[in-house]
């Protein structure tokens, strides 16, 4: 079958771009190697965070923040989004000083979403927090969502908009001739005018197949989920300079992460939990919230996602190959960006350009030739 666009990768970024492009009348096929949301998008902590974002990402992040508050308009479901706030703790004076400096810099740029809070504010937002926390940063409009609900909502909305989604469909080769792409997959041949590389941790592989070889690392962040406990933690909590993120889901379970890394298999196809590394995130959680000591953990996992050297994504047309758009490398914080990045990629698909300046996200910065030169 031949369409305008073939999107490779059924994570949230692939789905979001597919949905928003199809709504504007282009024909879209999406192929996913396993099932939609199998990788980073299903493994995610699903924090919706503008707090502490790299400034290069902020315009996209602030646009996305707006969308999260009106998610129903985009996918006919709120995706479980709750604006419960994001709180970044300072566990000592040095951390607090660094947070204050960051907020001052944002203010100078005219950005007022982050608020500096003191120890008393922290106690009132987060009763039970250890008294050694001296303050922090708070964004009241941030929060978190339900990743599986988001995946279902984006999938169903995309299908409704006319996207053809083919699961258990691994792309094995890509060739381009006469302005047309031909993709070989384990489920047959797909043809399209444009290709979107939204293959997450395997984006490097797709870039090689497409003739624009790029290099990225793979992040294997781990998560812990506990048994259900009585509600006690409202905002999503992180700690400046520490590997910690902690939230309570709408189910009542606690979700602890923060970037402790699992073990990547030698073939880069899977990642396993490294308990010793994970224990350090759990220790960080208990240090901030001593009463969590007795809570039982139920499950842990390691998710996989592409990571760039500067920890910001690759978004935009390939500078090397025609008809190829990259969107990957979110380096552990791409969930929040799903609505705005999908909109931007849909712009590129439909108009060939977009209103956001994508210079910081260009693919050439991780091109293998350049690295070698």
């Amino acid at each position, binding site marked *: 079958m031949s369409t305008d666009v073939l999107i490779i990768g059924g994570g949230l970024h692939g789905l979001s771009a597919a949905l928003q492009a199809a709504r504007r009348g282009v024909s879209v096929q999406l192929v996913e190697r*396993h*099932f939609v*949301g*199998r990788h980073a998008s*299903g493994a995610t902590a699903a924090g919706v965070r503008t707090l502490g974002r790299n400034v290069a990402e902020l315009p996209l992040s602030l646009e996305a923040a707006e969308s999260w508050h009106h998610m129903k308009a985009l996918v006919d479901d709120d995706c479980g989004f709750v604006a419960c706030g994001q709180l970044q703790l300072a566990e000592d004076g040095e951390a607090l000083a660094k947070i204050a400096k960051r907020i001052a810099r944002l203010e100078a740029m005219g950005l007022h979403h982050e608020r500096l809070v003191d120890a008393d504010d922290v106690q009132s937002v987060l009763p039970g927090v250890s008294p050694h926390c001296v303050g922090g940063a708070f964004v009241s409009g941030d929060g978190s969502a339900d990743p*599986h609900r988001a*995946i*279902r909502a984006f999938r169903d909305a995309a299908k409704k908009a006319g996207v053809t989604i083919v*699961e*258990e469909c691994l792309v094995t080769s890509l060739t381009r001739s006469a302005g047309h792409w031909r993709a070989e997959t384990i489920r047959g041949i797909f043809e399209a005018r444009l290709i979107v590389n939204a293959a997450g941790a395997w984006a490097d592989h797709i870039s090689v197949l497409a003739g624009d070889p790029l290099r990225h690392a793979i992040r294997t962040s781990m998560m*812990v*989920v*506990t*048994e259900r406990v009585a509600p006690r933690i409202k905002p999503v909590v992180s700690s400046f300079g*520490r*590997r910690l993120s902690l939230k309570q889901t709408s*189910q009542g379970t606690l979700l*602890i992460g923060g970037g*402790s890394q699992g073990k990547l298999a030698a073939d880069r196809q899977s990642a*396993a*939990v*490294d*308990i*010793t*590394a*994970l*224990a*350090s995130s*759990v*220790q*960080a*959680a*208990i240090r901030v919230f001593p009463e*969590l*000591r*007795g*809570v*039982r*953990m*139920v*499950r*842990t*996992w390691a998710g996989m996602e592409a990571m760039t050297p500067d920890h910001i994504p690759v978004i935009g047309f390939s500078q090397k190959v025609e008809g190829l758009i990259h969107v990957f490398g979110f380096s552990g914080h791409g969930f929040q960006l799903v609505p705005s990045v999908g909109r931007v990629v849909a712009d590129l698909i439909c108009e060939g350009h977009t209103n956001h300046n994508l210079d910081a996200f260009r693919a050439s910065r991780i091109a293998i030739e350049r690295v070698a030169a």
Partner: protein
Amino acid sequence: MSYDVAIIGAGPAGMSAAVRLRALGAAVIVIDEQPAPGGQIFRGIERNAASPVFPALGEDYAKGCALVAAFRASGAEYLPSTQVWQIEDGWNLFLTTERKARHITARAVLLANGAQERPVPFPGWTLPNVMTVGAAQILLKSGGMLPEGRIWIAGAGPLPLLYATQLLNLGGRIAGYLDTATTPKLSALARLPGAWREFGNLAKGLRWLRDVRRSGMMIKGFSDLRAEGEERLEHLTWEAAGKRHRVEADVLLVHEGVVPRIHETLALRCEHIWNEEQGYLAPKLDRWGQTSRKDLFVAGDAGGIGGWMAATVSGEIAALGIAGQLGIAANPDDLRQAAHLDQRRARALALRPFLDALYPPPRTRLADDVIACRCEEVTAGAIRSAARNSPADPSAVKAATRCGMGPCQGRQCGYTVQALLAEVHGLPIGDVSFFHIRPPLKPITLGEIASLEHAEGAA
């Protein structure tokens, strides 16, 4: 701490392996959740030896005393009341004893962690006072506890009959027995010659049956059993001879056979084989009990249901295989022959083909309103509708329904999800994979994992 071999499970397989490996001079550690050695079958045997419960538990139970004594004398390091909650390559084992976590290493691992009861969802199975026969037997062996009130048993296989006999020996009463076994098929009878060799065992089974018939109601040839009640079990209903029957009941004990514990081998990504007749997965093992992963061995029911005598022999075989591989014994094959292990195993397994054919797993279609995942209360209907919207992959159903996300990690619902996916996608069950198993293998507290030494350095 570092060992040649870490054995998980101090049942017949684990104990006999430990005894053998110690005799060959290996440094062995044996880890078990229970406070004393014996496994499921010989649970609490040292303490019970002096109690009035002992004679009621039967002849097989008494045979465990010698094995436990040999294990105690073997010099293997033994960690009771300890859970292994994570195994990483290398091999690194993470354990918790009395709320304190720690880490040991071993050159080889032997999983001798036995079987679990096959979960059988049916309407009302999650009601309080509906429990498994196995759970009731644990109460009996660990504290001499008997259920009270009108006790019903529903199930098939040797265990309910054995438990019923034990209960009657102790002066308990059974209100009725709902026999779910289908009438023996010709295929089962065809295997009788082998079974006759173990005539002793068969005769015992028949004696149990007679005792049970005498004690109360024996019901056969029924369908659609339902456990009903408001807060807990109040009555049972079933369909027979075109009519709905109803009885009052205080306790219902259910049992549909046992299946290997595979969470450990699944978590370690060993290859598994689907046993179509018994409807379970078991790790693929070589003739020494080694899995598809080097230096990871399985013995006893964890490698396929064979009963305690076969488990004892397979423990010895695995011990020799490990000793050979680690260079502790030069001639494992000679030792294997000298001890007649293959003949002993064949004898222990003689009755198995007959039992397997006699007691196939139930294959009735689950109604949509029956709960399949008790942790997250997900119904068969919800699983079917998620399955229609996704590839035949249990992980997709898990993400869509939360089924299997609870503390049991699919120990209760795994096979049900597999069967429902096969049904919806029109595939043979064996072609559908099982859930991915994530650490921890046992729920542990955040405090326990935080107590791991060296963790701070990893930050």
